[in-house]
């Protein structure tokens, strides 16, 4: 690996992540390794390593990190967050990193789709007449879509 000049990295990145919702406690990490040791995803895909991700944030490796596809492989199981002795709340940090990636346009395709679906129909799955008929057959109440609220709340 070629040598990286620490001065070429952005020391402010860690403060910016700490400014994001969910990322507030990122700098509390003292690299004990418990999160990576208990992470179920790391066992299957070693590239996804919570301690390594935190270290990349602290050292300012912003671009190298946010383009990584493994940011989206966290199963949000909160095991790291429950075991962290410094309350870094790493699962929330992952959400914060994903938000930053989305803002830089680095998110996987599917993600933007969720935003559009919700801003249009307020639901992930369309609820039309066909669905409501099936529900009535089974004696279940109709579902009334109410997308207006979501359109107002989520307009860009």
């Amino acid at each position: 690996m070629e040598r990286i000049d620490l001065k070429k990295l952005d020391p402010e990145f860690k403060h910016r992540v700490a400014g994001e919702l969910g990322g507030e406690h990122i700098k509390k990490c003292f690299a004990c390794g418990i999160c990576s040791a208990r992470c179920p995803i790391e066992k299957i895909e070693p590239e996804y390593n919570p301690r390594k991700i935190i270290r990349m944030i602290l050292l300012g490796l912003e671009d190298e990190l946010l383009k990584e596809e493994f940011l989206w492989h966290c199963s949000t199981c909160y095991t790291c967050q429950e075991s962290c002795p410094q309350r870094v709340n790493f699962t929330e940090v992952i959400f914060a990193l994903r938000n930053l990636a989305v803002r830089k346009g680095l998110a996987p395709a599917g993600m933007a789709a969720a935003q559009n679906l919700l801003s249009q129909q307020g639901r992930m799955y369309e609820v039309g007449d066909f669905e409501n008929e099936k529900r009535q057959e089974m004696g279940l109440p109709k579902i009334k879509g109410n997308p207006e609220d979501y359109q107002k709340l989520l307009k860009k």
Partner: protein
Amino acid sequence: MNYAFFLGCTVPVRNLNYELSARLVAETLGLELVDLEDFQCCGFPLKSVHFFDSLVIAARNLALAEKAGLPVCTLCSACGGSLSEANHLLRHNAELRSQINERLKEVGLEYTGTGEVKHFIRILYEDLGLDRIKEKITRPLSGFTFAPHYGCHFIKPAEAAGGIDPVEDPKSLSELIEVTGAKALKYNTMLNCCGGSVLGAKEDLANTLAGQKLGEVNQLGANGLIMICPFCNVMYEGQQKKVEKKLEQKLKVPVLYYPQLLGLALGAGPEQLGFKLNRVKDKDFLKQFEKED
């Protein structure tokens, strides 16, 4: 004991058997589930895209429940997680709360933080309690063993989930299974994550994770894996065929929702509990309940 019934996005469309059995069980046990028609998505899918917007959406639902003066009952752990985390966060962060209420003004709602969010299973366990459920059991399922699948958002993060269970050693679902007369299996991968939220990003990874539990339960030969969240159901039921290919071994793990199991013990038949929608079923187990009705 009445609750605002929060269905979320997947249950009312893809998991009617879960909703059906839950409504039946609630009715039998005297719980009143009020449908608020304005309830929509809980905001969970937005958390990865825009955390603040997902909080706005969650706060909207919470505000609706507060207006109706009812605690929220959720079926899906992801919805439960998203709403209770938002509730916990906004209760303790006044500045964030005022920003959220600024946005909610556009739809004439205000979040006050007085509401409460509880998963349906937690309501059965805490509000109703095992004794009252035991009284209503007419057909104990003795001689059967079921493997509980707690999932993650039901008990974690402990701070927001209200600490129903110790995170490393949960008991609630196991005891609920045993109240029906059946035996709850204790197994190594009990606390495993189903991998549901990785399905969209990298299916193979999600299947491997789900395969760890399916492999063990299949080997231990339980009568079924008990679900309390549609996300986990997608992984263990929906993806079971694909996991089979991945593990290169035959898998026959019946998957059913807890209300369906409890429904049988309360005397209801498989038809009323929407078992025909279950894709992986233990036919001879269900057969004994069919002949009566």
